[in-house]
């Protein structure tokens, strides 16, 4: 499909509409809509943008949309992508704002909340699987994954600190690699 601004808007409006259950769900939705259905980006790029989106301040769904929008059509693409992603959320809340309290008091809605929560877990699991395939490629990357996972899940260390440590690891790794190179080994 042609990557015109109108098509970018339409694609992100759809992504934004399907984005139920919190920001991370954008990952499996983008895999489905942008990688598989439209072929605008590949899984490798999506994995890279996800890592960068988590490393920068801001909502992850917003960062990811802007990265992909920029990749497709530079600054204008980024603006159109974020506008399309946010618009369904905006319209929906404007409509619901007045009846929010009545809505929350409808008890059967609690059942739906609970169910969607489980669906979101499955989607996050599927997204992790794809990202894993593209990021954990050897012993060294598995080590980074494992340390970050433990520090974040068990020790509750802030993601900001873990991201900075990962960046430092990348720099140190390159310094070591470039020292080795003159001796003929990669």
């Amino acid at each position, binding site marked *: 499909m042609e990557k015109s601004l109108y098509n970018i808007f339409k694609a992100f409006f759809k992504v934004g509409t399907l984005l139920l259950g919190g920001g991370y769900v954008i990952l499996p939705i983008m895999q489905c809509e942008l990688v598989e259905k439209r072929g605008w980006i590949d899984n490798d790029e999506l994995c890279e943008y996800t890592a960068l989106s988590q490393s920068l301040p801001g909502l992850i*769904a917003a960062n990811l949309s802007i990265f992909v929008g920029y990749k497709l059509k530079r600054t204008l693409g980024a603006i159109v992508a974020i506008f399309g992603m946010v618009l369904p959320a905006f319209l929906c809340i404007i409509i619901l704002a007045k009846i929010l309290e009545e809505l929350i008091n409808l008890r059967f809605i609690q059942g739906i909340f609970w169910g969607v929560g489980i669906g979101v877990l499955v989607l996050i699991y599927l997204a992790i699987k794809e990202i894993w395939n593209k990021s954990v490629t050897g012993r060294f*990357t598995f080590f980074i994954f494992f340390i970050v996972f433990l520090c974040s899940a068990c020790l509750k260390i802030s993601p900001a600190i873990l991201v900075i440590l990962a960046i430092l690891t990348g720099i140190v790794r390159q310094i070591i690699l470039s020292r080795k190179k003159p001796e003929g080994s990669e």
Partner: protein
Amino acid sequence: MIYLQLFLEFFHIGLFSFGGGYATIPFLYHIAETREWYTAQQLTDMIAVSSITPGPVGVNVATFAGYTTSGILGSVIATASVVLPSLIIVIIVSKLLEQFKHNEYVKSIIYCLKPAGCGLLAAVGVNMFISGFNLIGLVLFLILFAMSLKKKHDPLVYLGISAAAGLIIYLINPNM
């Protein structure tokens, strides 16, 4: 002036919430305590509602707070403010990446950031799993999981089935 206050508060959230997902929630509770835009109870309701409305919770609460304090214009300002820092920062980073994408150091940093990002995502998944754990939930999770093994379905399929299952389970046993 209310519009400027909305801009500043939500720009602040967009600029300092870090790590995605539910990182915005402490900031949003802080606003509930210091401003009279919404109460803590309204925020709790809002977070629940945002799981069945489109969009990230940060965007949903920004729209809601803007709308309840000063109508449509307020909601436009608050919503735009929460994503504006992302727009500026990500565009700058994208431009830098284009320029330096063949730099060995940049490549090495991305090589290490990818598994780190995966680890952060896995931690979010595990925490969500533990916090909402019960037997019916586990069964539903396993059924959806088994479905995904056979064929990769559209994300909406999982959300639709899980929402319907939640509703049915509630109707059978309202005290779940």
